[in-house]
């Protein structure tokens, strides 16, 4: 036992004291908190520029106030999504204004017959079958409920992409804690968000095959 006591006394002089250890603990703690809450989201998401800064408001005004003038249902019930170049050209075969964005559109896409690589904020992964028909036609929902009032926007928001999953940040939501409503006034679009609304509206979270393929 004497050896042990000797060791304890001998080592006491060599060791850092309790508060130093605690300070180090605190440094580690605070540093990780800061990097986890501030740096991590910046690392996780990349910011991408939309190919053209699209003005929804101008288009809505021109097209009679209806979203489905451009974002329409096909006869077979499928939803067309973002318009194709061909559909854009039906109005924009020549410039309709001197807006630099339109100029860019005409020069880089119309003249070169290239589809515009729009970044879709609400893009769902390939395993999802989202029925616009069921929501818009079946349940009479408004586009704004999920997408926010995008129709009155004059320019496009930043598009952020999760570097690991490739998802648009809108799916998870801007807040890392998924708190509050999204900035655009619509909905977050993780599966739980769908389920929550379905539970409220239909009394059931829904079956897997309702929205998966």
């Amino acid at each position, binding site marked *: 036992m004497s050896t042990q006591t000797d060791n304890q006394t001998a080592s006491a002089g060599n060791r850092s004291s309790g508060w130093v250890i605690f300070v180090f603990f605190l440094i580690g703690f605070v540093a990780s908190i800061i990097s986890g809450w501030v740096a991590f989201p910046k690392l996780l998401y990349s910011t991408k520029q939309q190919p053209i800064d699209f003005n929804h408001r101008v288009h809505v005004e021109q097209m009679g106030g209806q979203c489905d003038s451009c974002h329409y249902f096909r006869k077979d*019930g499928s939803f067309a999504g973002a318009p194709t170049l061909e559909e854009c050209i039906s109005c924009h075969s020549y410039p309709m204004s001197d807006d630099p964005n339109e100029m860019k559109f005409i020069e880089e896409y119309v003249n070169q017959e290239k589809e515009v690589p729009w970044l879709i904020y609400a893009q769902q*992964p*390939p*395993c999802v079958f989202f029925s616009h*028909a069921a929501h818009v*036609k079946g349940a009479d929902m408004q586009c704004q409920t999920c997408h926010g009032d995008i129709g009155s926007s004059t320019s496009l928001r930043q598009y952020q992409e999760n570097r690991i999953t490739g998802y648009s940040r809108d799916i998870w939501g801007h807040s890392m804690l998924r708190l509050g409503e999204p900035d655009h006034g619509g909905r977050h679009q993780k599966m739980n968000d769908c389920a929550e609304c379905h539970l409220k509206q*239909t009394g059931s979270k829904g079956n897997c*095959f*309702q929205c998966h*393929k």
Partner: protein
Amino acid sequence: MTQQPQHTKTKRYGMVIDLDKCTGCGACMVACYAENNVPFKQDETDKLLSLNWLRVMKIDNGKQFPETEICYIPMPCMQCDGEHMQGHSPCVSVCPAVATDYDYPTGIVSQIYTRCFGCRYCMAACPYHARKFNWWDPKWPADMKNYLNPDVSARMRGVVEKCSFCFHRYQKARDKAYVEGRKELGEQDYQTACAQACPAGAITFGDLKNPDHQVYRLSRDKNAFRLLERLNTNPKVYYTSTKDWVHRSADNYLEGESPEQVRKARKAAATH
């Protein structure tokens, strides 16, 4: 398992396959693979490593030449209703992560590849070997990715997949109905790829509960039976055959038992 939503009128989609008509041509299988983005490998001769949603089994009556007879049995997922018809299909009840589930509105057993983490318990549970595992990453050589169907997601390595009764066709048919302002689907609005492709007209598909659908009558035919009925899995794939030996090949019987006698006994027990 999710619970049955109370407000929905449920259907029981099912299939009746006329084995006297089936020629074993393989059109149903090929149509299924093309429709559902089923991958393929260079060597597909080991049938236990060959991904498919529909197999056609060849059986014979075991008699000597020239008394021999053959019969083909197409086997998709049987979409079992499970014991007591409550959706407790053998596979659904064992999946630890709800990757496979009983879709109450249609009676179809769903499989969500992105939820599945590949434990393969469902494969151990399925008596029909309807479930297949993605042992490899799928590959489409040359430009073959071009033909992939966007309605069905491609599966990744390490998950289980199986026949879905072409559920995406139901989803699309419903979309069309919504846009046209209809509530109900007609019999022809939703047909599986195999039923549509069968050049002999041997496969009939529809709602087993709907008297207007052909399957309603066919599944109640005196020659109709299902595979391994005695396991109480309650499949929704029915077969018809006028041949006794085919009926006998569809289930297990002890010495001295006959299919009719067992069926009668089961019916009597069910009504009690």
